[in-house]
């Protein structure tokens, strides 16, 4: 049986894809450090403080996370990742969206026309329920379905 959660749609869209789950804060700067310093075009996460995502390629996946963390320049890193098309397809936040992701998402969406989906306030239950590799269906009204 599917598990259904309802959040607040920030950037609306429909998608079906596999989940990548981070139970700790997602740092755009640390995650894309090789994009930052080495002009890498790889979506493989470099943040070795993030045991859930380290070494995994989240390009085009559905990233499930509590919030993002790190430098106030994190939005620049998200834009750098958007520019080389390695961002996830959707970002699903269990908490209220934070300023780093908000800025990065909006600038990537409005200035780079990156078609990323974002939903926040899905709750701790969502992050406890979802597992990496789960198939997820996202709807534009903010409904998130974890398929069994």
């Amino acid at each position, binding site marked *: 049986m599917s598990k259904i959660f*309802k*959040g*607040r749609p*920030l950037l609306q869209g429909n998608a079906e894809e596999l989940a990548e789950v981070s139970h*700790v*804060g997602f*740092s755009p*700067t*640390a995650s*894309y*450090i090789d*994009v*930052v*310093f080495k*002009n890498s075009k790889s979506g493989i996460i470099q943040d*070795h*403080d993030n045991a859930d995502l380290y070494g995994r390629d989240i390009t085009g996946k559905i990233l499930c996370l*509590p*919030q993002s*963390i*790190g*430098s*106030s*320049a*994190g*939005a*620049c*890193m998200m*834009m*750098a990742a*958007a*520019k080389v098309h390695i961002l996830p397809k959707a970002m699903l936040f269990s*908490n*209220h*969206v*934070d*300023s*780093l992701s*908000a*800025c*990065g998402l*909006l*600038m990537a969406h*409005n*200035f*780079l026309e990156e078609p990323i989906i974002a939903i*926040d*306030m899905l709750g701790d239950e969502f992050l406890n329920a979802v597992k990496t590799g789960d198939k997820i269906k996202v709807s534009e009204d*903010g409904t998130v379905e974890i398929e069994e």
Partner: protein
Amino acid sequence: MQPTNPKFEGTDLNLSLTTGTGVSKKDAKPSDPQPKMKLTPEEQEIFDGKHGEIRQKAMKTIVSYGEWFGAEKLVDLTGPVHMALSWGSGAIAPLLEIYEQIIDAGIKTYKPFTANPMPMDHENLAPAPEKREEFDATYSNQERLIEDLLKLGLIDRDSFSCSSYLPEAGNTPKKGDYLAWTESSAINYSNSVIGSRTNRNSVGMDMLCNILGKTPYFGLMTDEGRKAKWLIDVRTKKRPRSMVLGSAIGLKVLEDIPYIIGVDKFLDELPEEQKLSWLKDMGATTASNGAVGLYHVEGTTPEAIEKGRDLLVDDYQTYVIDDEELDRIYNSYPNLWPEGAKPEQVFVGCPHFTVEQLRLSSEKLQEGLKEAGIDTPVLPVHLFAGKKVADAFAKRYPKEAKYFEDVGVKIAHNCPVMYMQTPVISDEPIITSSNKCRVYSIARFFYDKNLMHIITTGELPKEIQKEEEKYE
């Protein structure tokens, strides 16, 4: 959680889960009312694209941003502009492309601005040639960034400092001014000590707000959003070290606003300039060890003087801080140096020093060297201050400035944190009196007496000596 690797770029790193705006949304639910922004006719015209595509994209971005955080309107900015972006690594190219679209459209910020210190100061830090080369390769967009910032409204090439609000730097807001700033320590100081109003913004969003001259009205911009959820009851026997007290507060309250009691009696003993630098350093530490955008100090900061404990929300929490609690906090800091590493350099002045802090450093160093019976420091000592502040120091205190020259102490104008986060530098064992440097790098933080021991012997101290700080 502390960083285990100094791999982060930028100066506002915070590893706690917070919104980063300075406004906690811990209790928010998707079912909460989602306000729709009410725009003025002029704002609506911009939103509809009647003032060009760039302004339209900027307006759409700040309106969505505001609505996500519960803003019902925009407000006109009234004060000076300070923004954090000052480092030109390859990664900022997409942002620079947007900045260049703004320039091509003939748009500037609504007032001239200052920016954070740059990552390097080769003249005063003099890194080895191979490191300098690698540094320059890392920041390949540096000159392009500076040129872009000048076209967008940067005051001049000497306007890079995180303490640009100091009178000598010339970008000081007034109480009640609406701002859209980045740089956590500058935001924290202007909100708390001056009483102007800014949220904690992200790089990029700051520029969009400042070209429009508007920002969403939520959080720290509002009276309600400036109320304190924590009473911090300081019961130390003496004036606490600003950067350990700030660390304790930041780690406890994260991004909530603290109302601090029990320190005004200590602060009243200080000359005004030293009181302000104590507040600057204490606040910067709440902002870096936590994510505090505003604090109130009873009997000291402007809103606390006006409203007193009415600034506390009804169901506030209390955190008592005594000397034992500060010891616990200090002793919790990890040593991230490679095994067996010995101190190589001393970095002092993060956030950038004031004129008075430079003068006090000269006095402290003279006393320390005299006591040790030596003429010059054993390790290279670097002080950090904005160019305009350093020039004002040299003019006001020529004897002290000459002393630094004589003993080989340099005043650098870059950002020590960004310098230490750059990969080619990031494993250098540096000691510091800044708890902001500590949290963003592997630098080790010491009390002044221990710091002087290291400066005069090159050796780490055997025990912690946390005597009352004579100076701050």
